[in-house]
């Protein structure tokens, strides 16, 4: 097991290195620099600025300097938010993004597994078709359509919840969390239904039923664990989807999370901020995938740690 974990972890490093390299060179070949928006900057000041941020060095040297910085977990100063470092910006935005994302993840996992199991138990029934129809709706309707519609009806017409903005308060979290969780809930429900139906057809379930166990015990003790495996392996892509979704959600609901920094940074060519966010989220996804792999291997007795 330890050997297997180490091997999986070893693969994370080339992935991360590729991520950093691509992001670095892509943003550097971009036309226009971070100080272009300043009006008529005298050439001397331009030079000083470039020197301060090491933009006058050869590209390769900048690249290795940046790699060295990353090794010390230092993403450098932001180009646009003058008095802030990227670390500070991420530290400010991340708690907000994390709380919404974690709640959405929790909600979609419990709801998705519940709905999927229910549909599987009533396979080809009205309930099954209804639930799966809803799930398809959740997959098909993009969250940037759902979010404005929810705001329009719930906030504008009925005035129940705030239409956006951010305070540490449940009222500000309800709509963003629901919109963010919707597509992932739907995916998990569909996955769960499929795998649960397959598991329910297997021999050991027939044995469990033949022993006279109640249906509830059969599901909870015998069917749940193997049926959860595909859902567990979906958690990696789910996180990626959640992070992508958070960019939109944070824009629509005016939430000061990392996603909103990213879009602004990209528009303003804030090199360091954009790269910081890409690397931070990339590392998060890679780490999460690693954990998911471990959990999967631990749950699935059929995997041999080769």
């Amino acid at each position, binding site marked *: 097991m330890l050997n297997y974990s180490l091997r999986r972890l070893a693969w994370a490093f080339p*992935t991360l290195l590729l991520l950093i390299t691509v992001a670095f060179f*892509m943003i550097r070949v971009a036309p226009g620099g971070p100080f272009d928006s300043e009006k008529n900057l005298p050439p001397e000041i331009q030079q000083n600025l470039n020197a301060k941020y090491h933009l006058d060095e050869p590209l390769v040297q900048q690249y290795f300097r940046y790699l060295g910085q990353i090794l010390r977990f230092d993403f450098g100063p932001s180009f646009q938010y003058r008095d802030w470092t990227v670390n500070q910006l991420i530290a400010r935005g991340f708690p907000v993004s994390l709380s919404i994302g974690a709640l959405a993840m929790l909600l979609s996992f419990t709801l998705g597994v519940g709905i999927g199991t229910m549909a599987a138990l009533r396979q080809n029934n009205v309930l099954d078709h209804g639930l799966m129809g809803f799930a398809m709706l959740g997959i098909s309707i993009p969250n940037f359509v759902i979010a*404005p*519609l929810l705001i329009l009806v719930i906030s504008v017409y009925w005035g129940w919840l705030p239409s956006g903005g951010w305070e540490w308060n449940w009222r500000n979290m309800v709509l963003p969390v629901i919109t963010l969780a919707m597509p992932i809930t739907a995916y998990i429900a569909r996955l769960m239904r499929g795998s649960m139906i397959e598991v329910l*057809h297997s021999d050991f379930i027939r044995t469990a039923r033949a022993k006279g166990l109640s249906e509830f015990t059969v599901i909870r003790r015998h069917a749940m664990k193997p049926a959860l495996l595909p859902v567990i392996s979906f958690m990696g892509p789910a996180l990626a989807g959640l992070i*992508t979704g958070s*960019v*939109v959600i944070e824009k629509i609901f005016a939430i000061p999370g990392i996603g909103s920094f990213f*879009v602004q940074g990209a528009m303003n*060519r804030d090199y360091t901020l954009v790269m910081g966010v890409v690397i931070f989220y990339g590392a998060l996804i890679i780490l999460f995938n690693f954990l998911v792999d471990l959990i999967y291997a631990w749950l699935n007795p059929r995997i041999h740690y080769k």
Partner: protein
Amino acid sequence: MNRSKQQSAGLDAGSRGATGKDAFAQALDVPQVAGRSLWEDARHRLLKNRAAVFSLGLLLLILVIVTVGPWLIPWDADYTDWDNIYSPPSIASGHYFGTDAVGRDLFVRTLQGGRISLLVGFVATIVSLLIGVTYGAIAGFFGGRVDQVMMRIVDIFYAMPFMFFVILLMVVFGRNIILVFIAIGAINWLDMARIVRGQTLSLKRTEYVEAAVACGATPWQIIVRHILPNLMGVVIVYITLTIPQVILVESFLSFLGLGVQEPMTSWGALVNDGAQDMESAPWMLIFPAVFLSITLYCLNYVGDGLRDALDPRDRI
């Protein structure tokens, strides 16, 4: 199989003094049943799936409206109707979906946006199809070291936050519709490559491929004659499931203001415009949103139906 049947029929005919296949069938006293090909089988299964058939019909309808519609509507997509700016949907004024902030007819705009959204969907899917099928077929067919290395690369790509790269790409190279096609296609080929590789691996071990190898067929001949045609089923299913994903990505980019640019538009861009004015002009949000959602919904249902019909493994 056909040949051996004829041979045994011939033998039979010899001993019984009758001729041809009919005599053979008669001799066995079996009524002749026309064989059903895999494709016919699949079509039957698809046609029995009412949700998929209904979705397919609705999709065709949307496709026709979107293609033909703009020529039939009296308004031009860039015509400003000064008497009806920001006006709600009405039959009297002839703007059935209302107008936007600069007095353009929303019906025409929605159809125009649909053209772009669907076009992006098809073209980007073809890009991802070409990359994915080639990559997966090569990895699966050659196997061994080649396969290991190629699939490791796919694994690494899988771990990337691709959406962020696309956003970067759009920011770096400007909003160019060709780039939208390529960027979206280039990030969506991973699933296709994995599926095609798996399928190729199992096809490679079948007897008819072995027979082809024994006959001295070159790898290229085997890929083209035996592997690719048998991949068709899976590929068609994943094309149908990729198109809605691609449309979603494009509208996501347009929603962030990074996709297509004015005066061109797409459903995502229209939803973005509409969301900004939704309190005073909700129709600007609702009509494009409904078109986009229905299209994605139907595409997903058709894809699901095709998968049930064509992919025998998933049949429960």
